[in-house]
């Protein structure tokens, strides 16, 4: 017996990326304990699930060496199997919440134990890889929707990191992919302003928020990040900070307003150089003079090196 038209289902998938890098000074100084951040995250995940029956949530833990799911639909499957076998059909919502709580705490301990075995070669959390995994996950769930189901997806990064060292191209690739697929990246920064993460919000039209003080993480999360990005305009939410998108030149590392870009590898120089030090291309010097001959009178300051 098939129903004629599939019911319209709206759902929302939230993927939380939790920075558990032990080098975060908030954790080092003991101002905030990882366990209290975790409880806030679990409570926030539950609030998201309570908004709509079909809402979904996944959590990734991330540090300088690795990133891994600490809660995903695989854990949810385990729960469904268990509740069916013990004849409690479906399981109450309360039971699901305590299952999420248990799984996350069990998996994070495993993650931290594995992480402790390898020394950290760097202080930088792998945000690029975490976002890449989150997007793969979103892509899979998106392609397995029921007929008639539409799903919004978003990523929330919670971090107390102050470093900028993650690989630029990788991070940018994931941010642009997120933008193309309408996945907003939200950032809740515990202490520092991180330019890389601000760019993620800017590109994907997510919200960036830096906590003024360390207390009340859960309240801030629920105040700012519980609503869908599309309906946040109605709320009074701190505005994203202005960003400067002028590049730093490769040769001196200074901000550049007029630059010379290698046509093969897009490296930016502030002066014309005869060769590209990144890809070893040799430039024809004359070709740098004009990009395009214009019919109108051009008052270019001609560069003759």
């Amino acid at each position, binding site marked *: 017996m098939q129903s004629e038209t599939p019911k319209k289902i709206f759902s929302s998938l939230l993927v939380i990326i939790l920075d558990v890098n032990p080098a975060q000074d908030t954790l080092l100084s003991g101002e905030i304990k990882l366990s209290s951040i975790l409880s806030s995250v679990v409570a926030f995940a539950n609030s998201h699930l309570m908004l709509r029956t079909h809402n979904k949530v996944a959590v990734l833990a991330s540090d300088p*060496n690795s*990133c891994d799911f600490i809660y995903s639909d*695989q854990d949810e499957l385990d729960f469904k199997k268990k509740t069916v076998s013990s004849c409690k059909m479906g399981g109450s919502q309360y039971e699901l919440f305590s299952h999420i709580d248990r799984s996350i705490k069990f998996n994070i301990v495993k993650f931290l134990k594995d992480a402790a075995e390898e020394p950290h*070669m*760097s202080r930088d959390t*792998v945000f*690029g*890889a975490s976002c*890449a*995994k989150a997007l*793969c*996950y979103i*892509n*899979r769930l998106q*392609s397995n929707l029921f007929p008639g189901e539409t799903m919004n997806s978003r990523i929330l990064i919670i971090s107390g990191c102050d470093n900028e060292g993650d*690989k*630029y*191209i*990788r991070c*940018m*690739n994931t941010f*642009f*992919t997120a933008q193309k*697929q309408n996945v907003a990246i939200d950032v809740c920064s515990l202490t520092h302003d991180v330019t890389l993460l601000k*760019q993620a919000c800017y590109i994907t039209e997510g919200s960036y928020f830096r906590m003024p003080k360390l207390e009340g993480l859960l309240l801030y999360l629920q105040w700012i990040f519980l609503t869908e990005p599309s309906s946040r305009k109605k709320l009074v939410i701190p505005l994203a900070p202005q960003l*400067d*998108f*002028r*590049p730093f030149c490769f040769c001196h590392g200074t901000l*550049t*307003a*007029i*630059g*010379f*870009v*290698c*046509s*093969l*590898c*897009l490296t*930016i*120089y502030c002066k*014309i*150089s005869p060769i*590209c030090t990144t890809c070893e*291309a*040799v*430039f*024809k010097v004359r*070709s*740098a*003079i004009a*990009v*395009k*001959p*214009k019919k109108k009178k*051009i*008052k*270019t*300051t001609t560069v003759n090196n």
Partner: protein
Amino acid sequence: MDETEVKEYRWEGGYEKTWEEVKEDEVGNVEWSVKEIIEKSKRLLATRQPNVRLGMMRHLFVIVDSSNSMVEKDLKPTRQLCTYKLLQDFIQDYFDQNPISQLGLITTRNSSAERISELSGNRKYHLEELKKTFGDFNYCNGLMSVQNSLEIALSVMKMLPSHTSKEILIIGSSLSSCDPGEINTTIEMLKTNNIRVSMIHLAAEVRMFRHLCNETKGKHNVIVDDVHFKHILWSLVEPVPLPNSVDASCVKMGFPQELEQKPPFTTCSCHLAEGGKLNAKGFFCPQCNSKYCELPVECKCCGLILVSSLHLARSLHHLVPIKPFIKIELEEGSSAYCYGCRKRIKVPAENVYFCESCKKHYCDGCDIYVHNTLHVCPGCAVKRDEKR
């Protein structure tokens, strides 16, 4: 064929056209073959070799067949409107992925050809010109002339410096071309100028068109349906390997910062035709101080291309392509989790893919997603030792 006959499947219209590509002796397997063609086009991108020199600075002319064959309804709603829609997306994607490149549009109808937009990096300009001409549903008429179109493109591209990648894309719908002279002399001219000609044909393979593409080292494709059309167009958005004879160059560009003016506000140069917009915020050309409300744009006053570093970052992924994953066999009954999406891969019913650099397993879906869309291997991204 009966005009009123309603086609049940979208691709049905396609497979009679690409009959040559579908193996005729296995008529029972036709559906499978069509699927295979589409599958192949999906994986097209994943096979690129790393470490080839790419032409990041491209000059591309798109020649659009505007003959009366464009009114056919085998693409929905018509060939013309389907092409129009996909071409608009193509122009957007082209400039997203090729921020320092230029494009020009040529249409061909009534046995002649017309340059409807000049080579330029201004996407709005092309979209507007396209709308005025090909976007009008009465526009298509008469016969197409491939040679006349190529000659127009040639006359402009001959003048271009040697460090750019020169390409022509023909979107063809007619099975013949109304040419004034010997096409082979034109082909020779294209070859001496290092111009690559590719073609997407909406109906069938024509030997002369295939010859033209082969001789100039371009690609020739016949589409199966609109989805396939879209995939092929998307594959042409990616920069192509550069012939060795082409030189590198240094392109001068401006990177203006968004600044807020104190009143009185000035109008922007980009909307001068509409009287200009009064805006407090704007981007100011670092060379001549003209004001613009949007980037990227080519400065109307001094010709400098104005971009933000984000526009360049958008195409950097072409320079660090990901090696194809290899398909591996796991023991029956063993299970693997996909490193990307954490799907439990059922062996042997589902394929397992393996990244040789990070030694992680991936599922079928992630293999395609990582190579075609994401351009980042999640496993490789946690490694520290790599350069970028």
